């Protein structure tokens, strides 16, 4: 009797774990597939105004501007192709948010075509380079980076 109960509990636990795993995977896939936009996708096939989506791309250099209120930041997110989506965000920027590096913005498209972000996540690239390189001028750093970061297509 006791053994039977134990077996039952184990089977149920295993089933819950498997179903949970499947649901998590499906949830993640759904999130990725229909709610993640690249800038070129957002321009070609924009989501409905007000629908919660994610926008992922690169912060275009020279576009980050602090507004007069001191808390709202505007910048442009670009993708691989020649595309640009203006983004507005009011809040605390993550420490790794920088011009020229990756960003994932969670929010919604406003009627004027600006992406209103509730949350900004900084995306790191696959390169790990010590801080010393940052003190060199850009040309040197690029040279050095090319030598140390092999394998990026």
């Amino acid at each position, binding site marked *: 009797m006791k*053994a039977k109960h*134990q*077996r039952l509990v*184990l089977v149920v*636990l*295993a089933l819950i*774990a*498997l179903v*949970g*795993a499947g649901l*998590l*995977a499906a*949830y*993640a*896939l759904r*999130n*990725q597939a229909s709610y*993640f936009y*690249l800038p070129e996708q957002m321009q070609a096939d924009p989501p409905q105004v007000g629908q919660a989506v994610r926008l*992922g791309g690169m912060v275009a250099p020279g576009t980050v501007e602090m507004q007069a209120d001191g808390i709202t930041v505007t910048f442009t997110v670009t993708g691989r192709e020649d595309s640009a989506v203006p983004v507005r965000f009011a809040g605390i920027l*993550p*420490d*790794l*948010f*920088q011009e020229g*590096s990756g960003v*994932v913005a969670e929010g919604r498209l406003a009627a004027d075509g600006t992406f209103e972000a509730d*949350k*900004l*996540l*900084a*995306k*790191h*690239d*696959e*390169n*790990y*380079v*010590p*801080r*010393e*390189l*940052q003190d060199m001028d850009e040309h040197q750093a690029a040279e050095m980076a090319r030598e*140390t*970061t*092999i*394998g*990026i297509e």
Partner: protein
Amino acid sequence: MHGFANPKRFLALAGWLTPLLLVSGFFVTAAALYWGFTQVPPDRLMGETVRIIFIHVPTAWLGMGGWTAIAISSLVFLVWRHPLAAIAARGAAVPGLVFTLVCLATGSIWGRPTWGTWWVWDGRLTSMLVLAFLYIAYIALAQAAQREGVSARIPAIFGLIGAINIPIINRSVVWWNSLHQPPSITMGKSAIDGVFLAPLLFAVIGFSLIFGGVVLARMRALLADIQADARLRRRAMEAD
């Protein structure tokens, strides 16, 4: 478990290899982590948090390696019926689970200062979480199979099926564009500067030695349990 292959040779080997792996792994890992913690310069963007890589990456690889070991051992067990392979598969489960959990936890701690969030339902993170659940289910299943005297083939089949998740984890950052960066280290190539790469390789070696030692210790414990139970059962039958 009928027809248990004589594990004498395995026990003779594991007798001295288990402490050797654990002790050497301890010292290599300690040296690598000390190196990474104190000697490595901060990363250009991530700053000091880059040091987490020396725990996060080895445990991630071994978490996936653990299930690969389960799958290969399960296949050997199913095809050649070698009972020691079933023990080996079960031996890899606990260290695999622990390293997967350490990988998830350190990744979460790393994500907060670099990405700005503790967790995101990204393909890589989700598939790694699924791996942790698979380990838990596998351990429960293997234990139940032993206790109930059910064939060890059932957990072995589960171990094989669960291996589908490994290539999914591996490819997840390429398939689903999201927060986790693409692989830095692929076949023969690395986008990691030498000052970070050298201690990382040492940490991988050290954690692997520990992993091997724990697998052997688990296998010895499982074997001893099975042998003791078998003897008790035989004695109970003789007494009847």
